């Protein structure tokens, strides 16, 4: 592996390798001394064109736990706000000796362009590009699901599991990356969303689609429910609304105590954060013992450590 750009073209073999490596990384995070010398002397640049707290600090923590040096570059208040192009930013980072660039960008395909533009020598990790992909989030979701739902998980995928992804699939790179990764790993995926929040051209996706959470829960038992964040700012009001009101969305798609009670005993609840309590998920569901939302954050560090290790530790690849 040279870059981590998305999950669509990821092989099952690579995905399982990342999850297995993440499991070992997670084990090291329970030690008294959590820092490993593995990536000493390597430089990881966090290049963030979009605001993000948790993904950036998660990558930063992962790189630092492996002893890499971390440089944070955010578009706000930088040369980018003065009009610098992605290419010139990349050339600058190259000149500074970046071994890996973690990039978050508002444009779909930015990570691919950075990796294949010939501007950078190092590895590129996609930390979210537009509405395209967010592979490390999908990997941490798969890691969390595997840990809870698969016995003796080393070397295994998610075969036979049924995972429901609920909410704004249209704008969600998390959902896209998860659809590809979870199905590659053998899981069955159901998407639950209003028709207005489903993308066009998802015909070839190997998924079932439901237009209310109750329908999805009636149709089959699910092993994991993944709630997506409703991006409030762009959802209601004006001519561009995607659903009539937040109340209606909550009624049809929100995960509350009653719907929790209908889930099988072992089902886990996931959310990539930040949550809108009371909108897509009730406090009762978010704080239930079956919610693994906080654990997802910890697993995110382990998965990103694994990705950085697998991309950076070996001999340089062409």
């Amino acid at each position: 592996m040279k870059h981590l750009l998305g999950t669509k073209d990821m092989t099952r073999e690579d995905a399982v390798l990342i999850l297995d490596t993440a499991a070992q990384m997670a084990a090291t995070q329970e030690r008294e001394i959590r820092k490993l010398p593995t990536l000493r002397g390597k430089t990881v640049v966090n290049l963030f064109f979009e605001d993000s707290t948790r993904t950036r600090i998660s990558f930063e923590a992962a790189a630092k736990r492996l002893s890499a040096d971390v440089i944070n570059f955010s578009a706000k208040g930088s040369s980018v706000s003065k009009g610098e192009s992605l290419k010139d930013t990349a050339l600058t980072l190259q000149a500074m000796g970046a071994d890996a660039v973690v990039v978050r960008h508002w444009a779909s395909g930015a990570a691919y362009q950075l990796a294949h533009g010939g501007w950078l020598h190092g590895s590129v990790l996609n930390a979210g590009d537009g509405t395209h992909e967010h592979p490390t989030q999908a990997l941490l979701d798969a890691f969390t699901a595997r840990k809870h739902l698969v016995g003796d998980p080393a070397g295994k995928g998610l075969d036979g599991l049924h995972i429901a992804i609920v909410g704004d699939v249209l704008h969600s790179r998390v959902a896209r990356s998860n659809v590809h990764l979870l199905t590659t790993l053998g899981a069955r995926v159901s998407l639950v969303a209003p028709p207005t929040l489903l993308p066009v051209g998802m015909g070839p996706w190997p998924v079932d689609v439901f237009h209310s959470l109750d329908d999805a829960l009636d149709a089959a038992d699910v092993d994991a429910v993944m709630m997506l964040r409703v991006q409030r700012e762009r959802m209601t009001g004006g001519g561009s609304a995607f659903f009539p009101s937040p109340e209606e969305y909550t009624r049809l798609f929100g995960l509350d105590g009653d719907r929790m009670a209908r889930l099988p005993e072992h089902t886990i609840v996931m959310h990539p954060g930040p949550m809108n309590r009371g909108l897509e998920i009730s406090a009762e569901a978010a704080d239930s013992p079956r919610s693994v939302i906080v654990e997802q954050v910890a697993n995110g560090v382990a998965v990103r450590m694994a990705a950085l290790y697998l991309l950076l530790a070996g001999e340089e690849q062409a």
Partner: protein
Amino acid sequence: MTGTILGAPDVARALTRIAHEIIERNDGAADIVLLGIPTRGEPLARRLAQRIADVESGFDAADRCGSLDITMYRDDLHKQPTRSIGATTLPAAGIDDAVVVLVDDVFHTGRTIRAALDAVKDLGRPRAVQLAVLVDRGHRELPIRADFVGKNIPTARSERVAVHLEEIDGEDAVILTGGER
């Protein structure tokens, strides 16, 4: 000399002797923890622990055994294809104030052991660290020596020493191959 250097009975005798030497050197087995370095150090550590338990009452073999993966501490990571990471498991009681005996199959340059010492340092503070190896083939590149050696085998650098163990390879043997002198 190439071919099979040690057969199954030789390996068994060597391990039995090492187990007794460990007990002798440490005046008993009270604080001993055996940490095997994957892949083949792991079953060797388990066998040594079993042999110690056979003669020392109160020594629980399963409780005093672990594995120590050193992949992330290697100094040659960037010179090789990416290695997969093995498991590190410690006894429940940890290794603080214990006498840790590192166990590996072949002792060669000493670089693996250097990495292991770094790894141990991050896991706790043992009272002492000792080293037991099944085969010492020489060619040290660092000032490190073994405390317990199954068999010294003089080799050429170009030769390869392969240790086969029942648990992994289906037989016990130490095989010397290759090497244009």
